[in-house]
Every structure is written in C-alpha cells, then in structure tokens.
C-alpha cells in the first residue's frame, strides 16, 4: 500500500512533465529513423538486396572453353550463379583504384589481359602452370589481381576467399579434364609402357615390349594397341569414379551437379538507401539496439528524482513517516521499472508497425513471439532499474547524476553494440560487450528477432541472457543498497 502510494506519486510527477514524456518516447524513434537513413544499405549487410557485392575489372583478351569467350567470363558466370553474391563490373582499372582509394569498395578482382592464356596453360604436367598453393590459387600466376582497401581488411578478406573459391571451381575441373584427356595420348602410353613391368616366362617385361610383341613388329598395329590401352585406362577410371565426369572441364559437369539450381541472378541494384525502405534488415538490428539503450537512460531520471527529493526536503518527510528504507526505494524504483517496460514495449510495437520489424520467426504464433520477448524486456528493465538506483546512490547533485548516469550508460551502449554493430568490432571489443547488460540484452533480441521461416532461435541463449541480465540487476541493486544514504 505504502509502496504503491510512493510509486503512484513518482509516476504522477514524471508524467506531469509532458514534454519529457514526448522526448522520452519520441527520441528513440528519431534515432532509429536517422540511423537507418544514414547507414542505409551499409548497415549490417552490404547492399539493400542483402547480397555480397563482388566487383570485377575484365581486361582479359584471350579465349577459354568456348570460342570468343574468355576464361574471365567463366569466373563471372560462376560468381554470378553463387547464392548470396552479386557481381558488378567496374569500367576499368582506374575506376577500380579510385573506388578503393575512396573506401567505397573493399576489394576488386582484376583479370588482366593474359588471364585466359594463363588458364589455358594451367596443367598438372611439369611443363604447365601450377596455379595452386596451400591456401588456394596464385593470382599472379594466372595474371589476375585482387585490389584491396587496407581500411576494410575484414570485408576484403571475405571477397578474397569468395574469389579463390570461384577460381578453384573454374581452374581445377579444367585441369582435371585436360589431364584425363592425356591418358589416352601416345606419350602417356609410352611412359606407361616403359614403367609398367609385368611377369613373363623369362622374367619381368615392360608393357611396351609386351604390346610390341603382340603387334608382331607392325608399328601401326603397335600404335593401335597402345591407343586401346589408353582408352581402356580412361574407361576404367570413368567407371571407377562414375560419380564424377572426369572429362568435364567445368565444375558443373565434373560434379554432375546439373540437377541443382544455380544461385539466383542478382536483381538490378537499387541506387542508394531509401528512407522508406522500412522492411529492410537494418531495422531488425536498429530497433532492438535502441530498445536496449534508451531504457538505461532512465538511470538519470531516477538519479534526478532522488536529488530533487533531497533538495526540496521531502525525503526528510518520507523518513518521518512510518515507512522503511526498503519501501522508499521500492516506491521510487517501481515507476522506473514500469517506465522502462513501457518504453521497450512502445519501441518494439513501433518497430513492428512503422519499421515492419518482425518479432520472431514467421512460423511462431504471435502469442509465442510475445511470450519470449516479455522475459527479455522484463530482465532488461530490471537491470536498468538496478543501474538507476546505483546512480541515485552515488549522486549528490544534478551534475553528478549527469556524470555518473550519462557517461557509463553511453560507454556501455557503445561497447555493447547498441550504437555500432558488434559484427563490425574487433574480437577483443566484442568480448568487452559481455561485461555490459546491454550486450546480453542485444544477444537475446538478436536471437529472437528474425523473420526467416527456417530459422529457429536457440531459446537457451535467450534464457541465459535473461538470467545474466537479472544477475546484473541484482548486483546493481545490492551495491546501491549498500551505498545509498537517505539522510
């Protein structure tokens, strides 16, 4: 009853400042909108259609598998048919270097003029080009180059690996197919004839001699026999490895993967971010980020409430009354908790209605989505409430509230990934985020909030995050109880 009276009074005082309420609710929405507008397609994903963009410069002047079609086109085709990749050409090397210098692209794959010639010369034979090394393909040996932006090492590394895989898929089947063809050539049979020894009545005899013996000295017949051996070896290998077409010179034919649908061709890229692109992936990240961040700013509100109460003498009157210290604190914290829950609910609802954010897997019914969001909101509010009381406990003036409240909350928001996505941070920075309640709240939201029907959230992650958030709240409250003085 007393706690309820105290809480009612606090809520009444807080809500009586209408401008403050408008700012409290409106500012996070403005932040989400502005952030979404500013970051647009570069936030979280590389483009509005959520595919990885790979840029090419094609200077190749040779021919590949088909007449008039250079090998660079085979690489382009392979990249283009890969799911999640969108390939775009840049007009020339100068443009590529300019884009790199201005940090607009992370990397550009350049096919230089001799690319096709070099690929044609790639072979397992000693006189061919060996393009492979432990980690992939030597670009310089095949007259290709990957221009990289040193300021975007992570993204450039991803594109490097994508290019390597594509090149491997183009070059390796070509080399296998060519090698397989050589099995029936006279040179190979000759080599085989000299190296293979078979037991004979008078001791070991080479295959070549054996074949010559069967040919009875007829060179034409000897050649014919050798050809048959070569074909037989090929046929036997084909039969042995019938899962693969060793004559195929492309990945698709080698792996007999014609029944698999290739990746989707990239649609035309949209030009620049569009502010009304409310269903975009970025809002799936922005809304929970600010839903986590802003309730923690209520720490300053509670701090100010305590300082004001002390300054205007009413805290003394509360202490005259038959009200315990715990009741006074509970009465002050309850409105903060309710406000925090209300703010989070408002932002999630706004996220759904305005920014078309989903609340969970589409396969879940609404009650299940809400049912899992509720503990996250509650645990986050509990943690923010604890921090609020801690700020109130250590602050003696409005300035101290601003210092002890705003600074830690901002730092935690930054470190945790509320302002800058965690994926864009270094490993050590990401590790730091786990020392903040914000980091755990974000982890829970990101686990839950997804619209992919195939995606099933790991509810243990959500439960674990809620537990840690509750522990944060309890820890803050405990420390605040120890530090807070009502006199």
């Amino acid at each position, binding site marked *: 009853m007393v706690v309820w009276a*105290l809480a009612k009074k606090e809520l009444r005082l807080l809500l009586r400042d209408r401008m403050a309420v408008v700012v409290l609710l409106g500012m996070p929405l403005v932040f989400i909108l502005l952030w979404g507008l500013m970051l647009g397609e570069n936030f979280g994903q590389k483009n509005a259609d959520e595919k990885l963009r790979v840029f090419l410069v094609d200077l190749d002047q040779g021919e590949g598998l088909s007449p008039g079609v250079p090998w660079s086109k085979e690489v382009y085709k392979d990249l283009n048919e890969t799911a999640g990749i969108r390939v775009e050409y840049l007009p020339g090397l100068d443009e590529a270097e300019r884009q790199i210098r201005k940090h607009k692209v992370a990397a550009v794959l350049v096919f230089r003029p001799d690319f096709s010639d070099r690929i044609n010369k790639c072979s397992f034979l000693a006189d061919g080009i060996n393009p492979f090394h432990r980690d992939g393909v030597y670009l310089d040996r095949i007259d290709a180059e990957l221009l990289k932006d040193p300021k975007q090492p992570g993204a450039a590394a991803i594109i490097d690996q994508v290019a390597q895989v594509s090149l491997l898929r183009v070059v390796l089947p070509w080399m296998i197919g060519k090698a397989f063809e050589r099995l029936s050539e006279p040179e190979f049979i000759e080599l085989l004839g000299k190296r293979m020894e078979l037991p004979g009545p008078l001791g070991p005899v080479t295959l070549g001699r054996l074949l010559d013996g069967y040919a009875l000295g007829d060179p034409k017949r000897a050649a014919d026999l050798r050809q048959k051996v070569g074909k037989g070896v090929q046929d036997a290998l084909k039969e042995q490895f019938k899962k693969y077409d060793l004559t195929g010179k492309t990945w698709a034919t080698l792996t007999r993967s014609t029944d698999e649908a290739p990746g989707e061709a990239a649609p035309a890229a949209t030009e620049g971010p569009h502010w009304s692109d409310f269903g975009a992936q970025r809002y799936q990240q922005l809304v929970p980020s600010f839903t986590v961040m802003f309730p923690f700013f209520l720490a300053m509100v509670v701090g100010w409430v305590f300082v004001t109460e002390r300054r*205007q003498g009413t805290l*003394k009157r509360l202490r*005259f009354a*038959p009200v315990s210290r715990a009741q006074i604190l509970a009465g002050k914290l309850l409105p903060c908790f309710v406000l925090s829950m209300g703010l989070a609910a408002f932002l999630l609802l706004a996220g759904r209605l305005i920014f078309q954010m989903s609340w969970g897997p589409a396969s879940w019914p609404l009650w299940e989505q809400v049912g899992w969001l509720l503990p996250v909101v509650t645990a986050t509010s509990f943690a923010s409430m604890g921090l609020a009381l801690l700020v109130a406990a250590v602050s003696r003036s409005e300035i101290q509230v601003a210092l002890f409240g705003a600074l830690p909350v901002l730092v935690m928001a930054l470190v945790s990934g509320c302002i800058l996505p965690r994926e864009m941070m270094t490993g050590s920075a990401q590790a730091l985020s786990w020392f903040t309640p914000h980091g755990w709240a974000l982890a829970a939201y990101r686990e839950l909030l997804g619209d992919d029907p195939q995606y099933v959230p790991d509810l243990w992650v959500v439960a674990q995050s809620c537990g840690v958030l509750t522990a944060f709240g309890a820890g803050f409250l405990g420390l605040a109880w120890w530090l807070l003085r009502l006199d």
Partner: protein
Amino acid sequence: MAAFLEVVDLRKNYGPVHALNSVGFSVREGELFGLLGPNGAGKTTLLSILSGLLGPTAGEVRLEGRRVGSGDRGLRRLIGVAPQELALYGDLTARENLHFFGELYGLGGAALRGRVDKVLAAVALTDRADARVHTFSGGMKRRLNLGAALVHEPRLLLLDEPTVGVDPQSRNHIFEEVRRLNAAGVTILYTSHYMEEVQALCPRVGVIDHGRLVACGEVADLLRRLDGLIRIHVPRLTPELRERLAGVPDCTLGERPPSEEEGATLELNCRDVKSTLVRVVTILNELKVELISLETEEPNLERVFLHLTGRDLRD
C-alpha cells in the same frame, strides 16, 4: 501525571561539535511546550531526534514510555512533524500532497479524502486545493507544510520554526490553528527564535543555547526571575532627582552611560512596573522635570535569555 514525552540526558555530537549537551525535560500530554533559542542553538537537532530522524549520541527519548528511534514504526504514526525547511512537492496540488502524505500513514479511501478536506479547511487552503504548490506564496506553503503534519491526526506535533518567512495573515492563521489543535488535546512542541510567539502561545517553555537547556519552566515563573524596567530620559540629571528616584521602594536605580543623545537616561528595575510608574510620574511632576521620554518594559523571555546567557536572543 506521567510524562507523555520524556527527554533524558540527551547528547548529540558531530565530531568535536556538541550539538546537544545533556538536554533533559518532559512534556505532559495535551501541553503546548515552547522551545526558545537563537539560530544554531540545537532546536532542529533536538526535533530531529524527537521525531526519530536522527539517533542521539547518548541519552534517550521516550514517548508514552516507548523509546523513540528504536525502529518502532508504530510510534511514528503518533508524531507529526512540520520541519523548518518546506517539504512539499511543488508539481503536485495541495490536495495531492496531503493525500500522498496521508497514504504514507496508512490512511485511504473516503476517510482520507474527508481528512484532507478538513486539513485544507484548517489551514485555509480549500480554495487553492487543486492548484500546484509551486504557485503558492510563502505563507501558503507554510500553512500547507503544517497541514501535511496534521493529516494523520498525530498525538504529538513537532513544529520547527513554523512562521519563518511568513506574512502576518498566515502567521495569525498558524497561531490560531496551533491553539485549536492544542485545545483539542494535541501535544505540541513549538520551537522558535521569536520570543513573542513562544511567550504568547506556550504556557511552558524551555530555553536552549549552544546545545544546553539553560532554563525550563512555566513562563510566568521564568519571568518572575526578572524585574520590570522603567527607562527615563531627561535633559539634566539633578542630585535631587537622583535622590528621589533612588528612594522609590522595591526598586533599584541604574544610570545608563552617556550617549550621543542629549541628557541622561536612568533605569529603574522594579517588581511592580505599574505602581512604580505612578510614583515616578509624581516625582517628576513635583520636581517639575522636563521629560524627554519615558519607557516601560515588562519582563519577557528575551530579557530572560539575556539574563541567563549574557547574549541577545537575536545575536
């Protein structure tokens, strides 16, 4: 009759500073007890301990035989406090303030609403009941401050300088309310540095200075310790005049040191100011003395304070 409020050898130290030093007194139920002392004497500290807000360094306070400050929250329901600093929520209305404070003491529902209306009427704020307190004048805030101490019908009311910074109308209103409450049986402890208030309101007072209770008793008894004073200012003091005035019975004649003003000033300390005044005027008429001014001063608590401490109450 057993004391309603008993203060026994109370001490309060803040480090080397002795805010209260062996203070002891008792108050009967239904009494209006005044505590008079200058700023910094220890009145507010004493009230803070009586209300349970502070704990004493030594000594104890008992209310109806129960120890105050021992965590007995039930005792706090018996006590109402109007602190010296206004303790009101500026953004709430008068009614909301009183309603909230009533709820803290366990009141609610129609009973609380009725009680709030009564208190608003008692402090003459009914017509401003639904206005926010930050729009009130200082006097109105003081009245509401008092009202907040009354809403739960306390049996002991502690008033700390309730008329500081208040307009005369509000002041009178507060006095009336204090008398009315006392007449209704509320025990009141009224602290002030205004001698006139305490002397007018309280039959019994304690005088406190530098943390010590230098006097305690019925006002009449305290005043009886001092003589009245008649101050005579004449252009010239003749030996005959001096001799005649020195001969007035039950009086002692004193002469004030010469000042910049012309003439001489004589002071007659006497038990009965009225009858002595008649004799003085007769003497002056007989000697045809030209009189510049004539003042009388009955014994008052300020003079008692000066007599006890050697300092003015307003020092």
